[in-house]
């Protein structure tokens, strides 16, 4: 059903799959007005709250410490980028391992998910960094940080991918088999293209979490964004300014994830 066609008679008809209709060009003004409205209301609440606070802003202090903000931001970008890719790899691997007929692999995957999801990242960082890495004489705290973060996030990614793959109807797998697809080809041509749309929203959420969780690496002295901002905060005590900058920084960081995820969702969209 294409909602464009139905608009003339009744725009209330298809309330469940209205997404597309909302983005049609005739609605552009409406859309803009509504976005503005929502933004305004939120801004008003914040502005009111601020006014009640009697807080005198010192935005210049951010400029003063811009270098710390900048280096932290870049570090977070780098760490997030590599961890994101690595955790996707790890998640994919364990999602498949879970389906393996080689039982140790199957249980390893289950263990991995339960233990990693069950324990705080903080503990994992300590254990990996101060116990395991020390024993194996691994030194570079940035590489280790990326590794730990990827392992952590990978557990969530594993489950997201697993859920997606399991949601594909069996009849399609069977059809692919009947055509002689190898397992690899099944994934490449049939499962993945269909699964992307379904797993993108939770995956984007997980990656947004990952970006923000990277701040926990500060406990092993990785100077990332949050840490640097908190350091600045502990010096200049302009908390509101600092944390606003922090929030904006992270929004800038996670926004591409949202955009790309929405793009992929749309690209792999097909009606079913």
């Amino acid at each position, binding site marked *: 059903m294409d909602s464009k066609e139905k608009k003339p008679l009744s725009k209330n008809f298809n309330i469940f799959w209205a997404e597309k209709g909302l983005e049609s060009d005739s609605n552009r003004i409406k859309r803009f007005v509504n976005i503005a409205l929502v933004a305004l209301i939120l801004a008003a609440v914040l502005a009111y709250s601020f006014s009640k606070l009697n807080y005198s802003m010192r935005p210049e202090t951010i400029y003063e410490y811009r270098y710390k903000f900048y280096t932290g931001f870049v570090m977070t970008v780098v760490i997030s980028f590599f961890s994101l890719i690595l955790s996707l790899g790890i998640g994919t691997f364990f999602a498949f391992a879970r389906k393996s007929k080689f039982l140790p692999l199957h249980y390893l995957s289950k263990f991995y998910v339960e233990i990693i999801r069950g324990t705080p990242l903080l503990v994992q960082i300590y254990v990996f960094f101060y116990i395991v890495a020390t024993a194996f004489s691994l030194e570079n705290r940035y590489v280790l940080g990326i590794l730990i973060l990827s392992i952590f996030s990978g557990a969530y990614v594993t489950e997201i991918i697993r859920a997606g793959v399991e949601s594909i109807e069996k009849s399609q797998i069977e059809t692919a088999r009947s055509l002689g697809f190898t397992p690899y080809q099944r994934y490449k041509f049939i499962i993945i293209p269909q699964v992307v749309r379904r797993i993108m929203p939770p995956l984007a959420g997980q990656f947004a979490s990952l970006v923000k969780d990277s701040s926990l690496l500060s406990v092993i002295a990785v100077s990332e964004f949050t840490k640097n901002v*908190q350091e600045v905060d502990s010096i200049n005590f302009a908390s509101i300014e600092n944390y606003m900058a922090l929030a904006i920084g992270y929004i800038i960081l996670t926004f591409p994830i949202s955009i790309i995820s929405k793009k992929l969702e749309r690209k792999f969209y097909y009606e079913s």
Partner: protein
Amino acid sequence: SQKDNAAEQSDKKELVVGMELAYPPFEMTDQKGNPTGISVDLAYALGEYLGRDVRIENMAYNGLIPSLMTGKIDIILSSMTITEERKESIDFSDPYAKAYLSLLINKNSPVQKFEDLNVEGRKIAVKKGTTGHLYAEKNLPNCEIMVFDKESACVLEVVQGKADAFMYDQMTIYKNWQQNPDTTRALLEPFQEELEYWGIGLRKDDSELRDQINAFLKEYNENGGFDELSMKYLAEQKKTFDELGIPFFFDIEK
């Protein structure tokens, strides 16, 4: 109008004291989770002096100043060093203690004195936002400064040889050296030109309370209150420090 209310009620209302109970023996909890420590005793003494009930709010260190500024607590009593930057946001009472920085050094590190750290390739661990952190930033341009959230992580770094030294206050350094005698040594002699002082944090507009607190601190010190606290919580340290000829926390001569 908020100010008037505050002033009006100040003699009846309870005194909400913010601290992070994670800095023994100044701010800590007993095994049941009740606040205890030097700052806690001091807070209760202050409450008694003001005739107000005391409620301790235990919160993360970086939540203290926002809480004070937004009126969620009345004072900060959490071994907070008086700095110019902090004074931009909040007010402080007169200092009630002074602290020196010391170093916990890995046994195998070549570092013998503070200046040895200011060399390419040395690594120092500091706790975020502490005076040790600020001091290192200012005075150790050649050293790699690693900033941690927790003292325990800093200590671990030194114990495992991942860092050469950990810079913090004397007392913590002393304690950790005692706990890790095989892997660490301590440099307790003061090396700073300027000392750092601890004060009680207040809202900027709370000058009435500040005067009261200053009066209290003066009286408390004169009555030997701080000596009592030292004997109660820091007997062993005080003895060691006296032996080494290093001045102690509450020996404030003004």
